[in-house]
């Protein structure tokens, strides 16, 4: 039987992603020659790489490799998920990404390993974060085209919202596991598919005339946006990094409620309807709950029960803030110089941000 799969709806960004995309359209068994030399090529690319979070070929390759575990990124022979070559290459790239993050993200001071001290340290870390503010820009200045670009960048994570952190569920125990379940249950709509946060986000995209298929806009987003999703997958898929994925979620939730209001304000200012802003409106209330649970019952309890995770809880939180800051900086730099923040323009058929008609509905 000859398996064959449609080619991916996006382009390769260099020799590694090109070889991988071709291989993924072929069966994984047989000679395996479609990935011949891939591990060596990966090692060479890593040896030459200067700036891994902005390296298009490596980030797309890692995104594709993690995508084998999530599904929906490219259609391929399911056997590629655990093919030794894909695993070896993935581990090599993710270790390089981790070591770059550890050397560039400032490690916050460690609080005492108690629930209260950890929660306070996380709240003060996130409130002191003086990164560039995408949410204030969206609220006050962004054009309708820029608001749509923002949604396109966000879609890489948000159409899979909560999934990278769910990898951590079986890797935690006791109180921390229960707290993560409490947050994720809400993220997944309390058991109602149409209320899953990823579905609410898809509704927003649909309302803007955007394609809601996962990965539909991979070509449009820079390496950095793929890196921010890859970082979550790295933290979530490695049990040894369970502290980091917990810290990441805590910082993510703590920097979401207030910005969500500003994002909603921005879309309202531009004349978009409640159908478009519902995702953000929902997150104001939801994340004000989640940040408390994440800080105390998840991160705080994990630090108390498994104190070896404490440095990584703080590292994961700091990495979340740093990565969000880098992405915000890149988007704002494009917009402030009058350029699009997308790598390639949206297809003609997509995204007609007709604010006037949206508000009339």
């Amino acid at each position, binding site marked *: 039987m000859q398996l064959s799969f449609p080619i991916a709806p996006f382009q390769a960004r260099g020799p590694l992603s090109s070889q991988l995309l071709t291989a993924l359209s072929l069966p994984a068994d047989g000679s395996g020659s479609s990935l011949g030399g891939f591990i060596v090529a990966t090692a060479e690319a890593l040896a030459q790489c200067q700036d891994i979070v902005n390296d298009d070929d490596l980030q797309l390759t890692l995104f594709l490799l993690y995508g084998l575990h999530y599904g929906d990124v490219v259609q391929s022979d399911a056997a590629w998920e655990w093919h030794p070559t894909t695993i070896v290459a993935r581990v090599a790239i993710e270790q390089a990404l981790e070591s770059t993050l550890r050397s560039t993200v400032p490690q916050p001071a460690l609080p005492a390993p108690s629930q209260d001290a950890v929660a306070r340290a996380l709240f003060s870390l996130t409130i002191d974060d003086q990164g560039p503010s995408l949410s204030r820009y969206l609220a006050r200045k962004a054009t309708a085209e820029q608001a749509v670009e923002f949604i396109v960048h966000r879609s890489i994570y948000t159409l899979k919202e909560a999934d990278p952190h769910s990898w951590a569920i079986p890797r935690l125990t006791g109180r921390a596991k229960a707290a993560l379940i409490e947050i994720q249950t809400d993220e997944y709509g309390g058991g109602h598919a149409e209320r899953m946060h990823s579905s609410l986000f898809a509704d927003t995209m649909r309302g803007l005339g955007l394609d809601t298929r996962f990965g539909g806009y991979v070509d449009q987003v820079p390496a950095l946006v793929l890196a921010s999703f890859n970082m979550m997958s790295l933290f979530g898929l490695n049990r040894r990094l369970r502290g980091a994925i917990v810290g990441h979620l805590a910082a993510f939730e703590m920097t979401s409620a207030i910005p969500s209001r500003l994002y909603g304000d921005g879309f309202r200012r531009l004349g978009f309807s409640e159908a478009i802003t519902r995702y953000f409106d929902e997150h104001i209330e939801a994340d004000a*709950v989640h940040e*408390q649970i994440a800080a105390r019952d998840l991160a705080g309890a994990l630090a108390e029960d498994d104190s070896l995770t404490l440095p990584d809880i703080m590292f994961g939180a700091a990495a979340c803030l740093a990565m969000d800051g880098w992405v915000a900086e890149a988007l704002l730099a494009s917009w402030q110089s009058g350029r699009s923040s997308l790598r390639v323009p949206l297809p003609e058929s997509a995204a007609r941000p007709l604010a006037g008609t949206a508000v009339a509905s």
Partner: protein
Amino acid sequence: MTPAASHPPVTITACPDGPLLVRGDVEITAPGGPIPHTRRTVALCRCGVSMIKPFCDGTHKLVGFTTAPTDPAGSGS
């Protein structure tokens, strides 16, 4: 099964410098009638500045809201 066993008690957690976290099956009412809520755990504002009262919207963090006892002699715990 007794009613008590099928309905675990409602708990209210006072979050330091933050909202009251209410877990359990509660109805929230206001002079105009019940306030709809879909999530099982809600955060009720106790700083007074939320724009979505009675729910917390995280703004307490921006206004320096503190629940620490003001009288140092009273800080027993």
